[in-house]
């Protein structure tokens, strides 16, 4: 018998004893749930997000401040170019991937550009000052950026360079986590990319005396340009 079969044999044997109802301790009354699936209710329990676009933007902005992310809400492509011109003053080398939004930004950058499409050398990317990527969505509830290997130039672009710049349109801002998962399903199921990530703020650690330090291993700075 294979190891897999042996483990499944032990699991089935163990599950012959039924287990008590979950969560009922000392006969305390349980909150009223659930139909066949709790999924439709999850948004009612998670932290509140407003209904309008203005409220979502406001919340994303508030969360970005708490997360020490650099969120810049802009009104036009000209403003985006102006921001990039300002940000790129000290850069020597840029990493990015092909996408209509990143193209728009990178066309105006007069520096060596490493493009991840079709493969790249990781050591070269490590030398880059910044990684510029698109994303699947922004999530107001948590201030997160949703990326996948398909939408954001692979696995490393958004984590290896010390500065990650995300370019996004306003209509990519979603309200909450359940809607982000719905988007993933709608966009990719059943063939999901091999890598999906919710990026929430720049890389951080509190491992020494629980003191917050940014840029533990990933980007020290996360800039989100949204217009």
């Amino acid at each position, binding site marked *: 018998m294979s190891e897999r079969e042996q483990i*499944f044999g032990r699991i089935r044997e163990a599950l012959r004893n039924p287990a008590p109802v979950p969560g009922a301790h000392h006969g305390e009354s349980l*909150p009223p749930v659930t139909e066949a699936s709790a999924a439709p209710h999850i948004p009612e329990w998670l932290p509140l997000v407003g209904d309008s676009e203005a409220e979502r933007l406001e919340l994303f902005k508030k969360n970005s401040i708490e997360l020490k992310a650099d969120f810049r809400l802009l009104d036009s492509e000209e403003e985006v170019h102006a921001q990039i011109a300002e940000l790129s003053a000290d850069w020597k080398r840029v990493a990015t991937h092909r996408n209509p939004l990143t193209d728009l930004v990178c066309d105006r950058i007069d520096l060596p550009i490493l493009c991840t499409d*079709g493969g790249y050398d990781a050591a070269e990317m490590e030398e880059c000052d910044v990684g510029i990527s698109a994303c699947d969505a922004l999530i107001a509830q948590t201030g997160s950026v949703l990326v996948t290997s398909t939408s954001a130039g692979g696995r*490393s672009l958004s984590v290896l360079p010390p500065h990650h710049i995300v370019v996004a349109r306003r209509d990519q801002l979603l309200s909450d986590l359940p809607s982000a998962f*719905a988007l993933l399903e709608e966009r990719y199921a059943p063939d999901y990319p091999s890598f999906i*990530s919710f990026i929430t703020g720049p890389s951080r*650690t509190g*491992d020494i005396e629980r003191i917050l330090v940014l840029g*533990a291993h990933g980007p020290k700075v996360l800039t989100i340009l949204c217009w």
Partner: protein
Amino acid sequence: MSVASDQFKGDATRVSKDEMQRALIHRGLKKYEAARSIRQAAFQDWEAARQTAAEIKWDAVNHLDDYLAEFADKIEANGAKVHWASNSQQAREIILGIIREKKARSIIKSKVMTGEEIHLNECLEKEGFDVVESDLGEYIVQLREEAPYHFVFPAMHLARGEISELFTKELGTAPTENVEELTMIARRVMREKYLSADVGISGGNFAVAETGMISITENEGNARLTCALPKVHISLMGIEKVLPKMRDLALFLPMLATAGAGQALTGYNSFYGGPKSGDECDGPEEFHVVLLDNRRTELLADSEQRDSLGCIRCGACLNVCPIYRNVGGHTYGTTYQGPIGSVITPHLRGLQDWKHLSNASSLCGACTQTCPVKINLHEHLLQNRRNASEEKPVWWEKMAFKGFEFVMNRPFLYRIGSKIARLVFPLHELVKASPIDPAREWTKTRELPPLAGQSFREYWSKRS
């Protein structure tokens, strides 16, 4: 008494007198408490969320055979290779086998508690491989050659000065009291390792059956780099980590972040479904998932305590536990510390050797109350005590209860007994706290309350 139990007693006594260590733990956990209460209050209905999380985990664990098979089949269809390990040794051999086949030398690891459980680092180092922990806290304890102090905050027992000394000694860096500089030293060391490592080893917080993906939660980005740059990615997980649906993560990820570290969402929540696919530009060429039983099926068979397999390893029960706060993480001598460790370790490593952990509890129930998946932790501690004494009764406890029963069933004996006790009690002063004092365990650190001058029965009869 087992070796583990003697070690626990000794270390608990030592650490509870170590004011420096306790102050560090206290300060760290105060910050956690403040952040967590804000995050939890932001939920519209935390209790309903908890109950649903408990129900989803109940469904997952009680249909583990179905979901585990679905997960394994799906992730293999995506190009990963799934390996099955009944015990630690098999898991180590599987991982060694992959590493040898790839002729790898250098290995980078992101946090994997299951790796601590099977003593993976010792094994790989003994075989001559270069293994580095990339999580800052794990790296620090690896350099100190000690176990993590807390399975979420591995180096919370160390002050910056100690870490600075450690880095100076091991890495030759200049001493600094600046926490950011210390973090940057580790960042620089790791940068080279990510680029040169042949194999990346990670854990996994959830295994999603529906899509065949593993989910990894972290703040630093070290797991992302570990799973992106080396040619081979190995993920080691316990078989109980399954979640039925991808969308369940919309609930579990914010709950894990809130309960674990008082965050709305942890810095990076990443899902991996396979190696680099044809049209992708990067990622490992091979992705191996090692699924470990290691007596989890024995815990599964205990239907009373089966809910403890739903644990998401957030560490909240450690953070609120008065015992953990006072005796510290290393005292437990286990991979998983605190209340959850005290519940599951006797199942994973032997009831008689580890039953003392169930007594290291005030039964205050703070652990049960804080648990985001509603594991009935403090009741399980009582059940472990019961199971241990049923399996192997302690002779003198049995005798004591027999004697108690004998006296209690005979009122005149009780009356005589309490009279004699009142007469001889003043003599207790002579032996108090000495080795022949029967109440020594109490009296060596505390006063016994004085006996009342008369019994209630006497008082009542005089009154009428």
